[in-house]
């Protein structure tokens, strides 16, 4: 019996050692010498206090956004590809742990993942969490603010938070995603970053950056019925993996309080 217990513990240890660990951190302030992103401009991290960056499944940067005290939203493809494994991690320089789940059929255009945290996500200066818009879709032509911890030039790795304005273009992949086209395009490291509308302080996250081809950037659309129902379903089944206790994961824009949510 004891040998069996030992074997079981051993398996857990192996599993833990092989698990990929996310480590989220706040974007650094842009260095003065940083070149401009094509079509966009450097963002002051203080204007986007809920934006985090982490190393994704490919070993390169991805962007995540805190949309509730204990909820992060990012792109599913930033987690291991072709895998249904949940991914765990922590917020850098804190004891806060997180565990993530990809949306079903994420490779079909529902490129979204949600992460719950073991404690409230720290926001500098006590600023509000970003809110999501899941009840209505933005109209084509609606101005957008795209945000990402992206590159400084096409094909290059960045390391600085950038923002740029665009508009909602066509709906693609059966309405699961919307595309933008123009002078501002997503680039490496932007995956998981938010597309905000309207542009301004009362902004809401309407999409999550997914991919780009020939300067056409695509975002997973949060108000798609399958995505919004996944988000609401996910909220009902969050348990702390260590304590096994149910965790309340309020999401700004759905059931979050006005006291800590933007807008």
């Amino acid at each position, binding site marked *: 019996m004891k040998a069996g217990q030992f074997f079981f513990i051993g398996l857990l240890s192996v599993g833990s050692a092989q698990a990929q660990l996310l480590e989220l951190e706040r974007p650094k302030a842009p260095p003065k010498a940083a070149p401009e992103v094509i079509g966009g401009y450097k963002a002051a991290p203080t204007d986007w206090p809920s934006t985090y960056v982490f190393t994704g*499944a490919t070993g*390169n940067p991805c962007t995540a956004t805190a949309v509730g005290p204990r909820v992060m939203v990012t*792109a599913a493809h930033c987690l291991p590809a072709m895998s249904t494994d949940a991914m765990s991690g922590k917020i850098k320089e804190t004891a806060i742990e997180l565990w993530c789940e990809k949306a079903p059929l994420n490779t*079909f255009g529902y490129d979204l993942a949600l992460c719950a945290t073991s404690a409230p996500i720290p926001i500098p200066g006590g600023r509000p969490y970003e809110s999501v818009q899941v009840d209505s879709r933005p109209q084509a032509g609606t101005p957008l603010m795209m945000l*990402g911890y992206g590159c400084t030039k096409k094909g290059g*790795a960045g390391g600085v938070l950038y923002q740029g304005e665009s508009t909602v273009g066509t709906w693609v992949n*059966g309405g699961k995603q919307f595309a933008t086209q123009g002078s501002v395009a997503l680039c490496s490291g932007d995956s*998981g970053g938010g597309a905000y509308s309207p542009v301004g302080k009362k902004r809401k996250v309407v999409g999550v950056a*997914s991919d780009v081809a020939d300067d056409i*950037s695509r975002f997973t659309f949060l108000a798609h019925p399958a995505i919004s129902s996944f988000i609401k379903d996910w909220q009902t089944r969050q348990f702390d993996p260590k304590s096994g206790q149910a965790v309340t994961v309020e999401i700004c824009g759905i059931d979050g309080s006005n006291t800590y949510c933007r807008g």
Partner: protein
Amino acid sequence: MKGILPSVVVASLAGLSSCTHLQVHRYAKASDPTSGYAYMLDFTQFQVTLTRTLSSCEAGEMPVVTAEATVTSSLVPDGSQIYVIDPASMISAFKTSDVLIDYKDGRLVGFNSSTVDKTGEVAASVISAAGKIAMLAAVPIPVSGAQQFCSDAAVAKFKALKENKQPIKEATSNVEDAEARLAVLTSQFAAGPTEALRKQIKTLTGDIKTARAGLDKLTKASAAAQSWLTEKVTINWPEQSGEFHRGPGNALGPATVARWFNVTAIRDAISSVPEFNPALDADDKLVVAGHDGTAARLGTSVDEYERQYSKLPAGTDVRACSANPECKSVIESLQKAIVARQVNRITLAQISFHLARRGSYGSETGSVGPADAKAGLRYRVPAAGSLYVCTFDQACQNGTATPLVRTDGAIAQLGSVFTIPFSSPAFASGGVNVKFDDQGRLLQAGLKRETSVAAGVANTAGAAVDQASSILSALEKAPITEANNATKLAQARKALADAEAALVKSPQVLATEELNLLKTQQELAVARAALGPDRAKDLSKQIEIAKLEADLADLQRRQSADPNAQQELVRAQYEAQTEMLLALRASKQAEIGVIEADRALEQARSTGK
């Protein structure tokens, strides 16, 4: 003409009962007659030299392979079109028959013909086309970091090329400047030798040798890197006369794929992109048909898809299916197949071949000709057509994509198999004679009669006129004119190329002749004494320079003729090749300068100046 035709037909019919026919059997299987004079028809085969180069390895973007193809064509025996002329039938048909059959490479080139025409040989194998294109696959890329999709080794080669580019440019310029200064000093020294000039020449030649060594090292490193990033193969297509389309195929070799790409990273990246998953409608139901349906993404027909994935019919609710382990497994298998196709598209850089006729004459399914042995001699009349080399699995002959290369000309197997029948009444004597050129085209057809039996003449003539009319008709049609024009154009092009080559290569020829003369007369030692110790070496360098000049001219000619030369990546490749050749030329010229300077100094020393 219309008025006399019925009588000819009647005469022919009347004479049929007493006719003896020239019989030519088709040999298609082992049991067919093998006794007689066998010959094969020809078909056009293309020799495609395909050079694929890894041209771009930008982080966050899919790798780009540039393909270049040069095409030559030739006629090869068609093993599916073998005929046997039955001599017995001829003996009975011709009372005084001389039978002479001319062959070339197993091909019938003359039948009772006194001479075999050779005029077609020039056009038998010509460089007919060359093209270069960037094989871009429009692939959405997940924007999760600047992922590198090439191998580390490939990235290192690009880095070496990039780092060497400016030093090569600067070193080339420095060597050229020094060589020009040395030439001035050397001529000054020849006119009035001084110790100061001698010292300057010695110093400068030493500097040039050092600079040249550095330049050689750089150019060799870059050439090695460029060679590492290039794969070259020669393909003979088609292998059978009945093959009109092939592809996609001729993939990069497995070792090259492993050397160039990070296949795992490519697979992981594209597997998360919706376009490389089964197609769904707005309700997440499976879409099979259509230009962007699942079958198209898989690269198969709808029927083939339905056979292969019978458990996933159109309209399958993928969300519900994913909840069922068995169904989910099939979906994952389908996903992997679609992803694999796209991975292959990016990493294998495949091409496809298509033959297409131009004009109304010809067939893209092949012509067999009549089975009846009495149909007589068979030959093909080539059709004007084109070979298209397309990238990936594209059917670019339909104008749906830009071909890698298109070459126009007379293509034998696109044409029809025609016949020359001959029948003779009893007691008649005579002969039929035909000549073909080396393209398998009929050059001359004749009929001779030595009898007063009018019916026999009328009968035979009727048949021959009938056949000759169709031959002439075919010859006079536009495609043949186009074929002739294509040949003329090819000949003109060749003449132009020869003239250009002669222009470019003349220093090479002169230098070669001079060197050969020295060698053949066994006077090399004497010549060295007369010309200086390094004259032979000097001449060798001049030959090398002349060859480089020819390479440069060839590169410029190809670039000016290449419709894709303005593509950014294609242009960059031409420029890189040009820079490399210019650097090599500068290096060789500098070496000659040093040799001349050494010789001037040596002569001055020996004459005591």
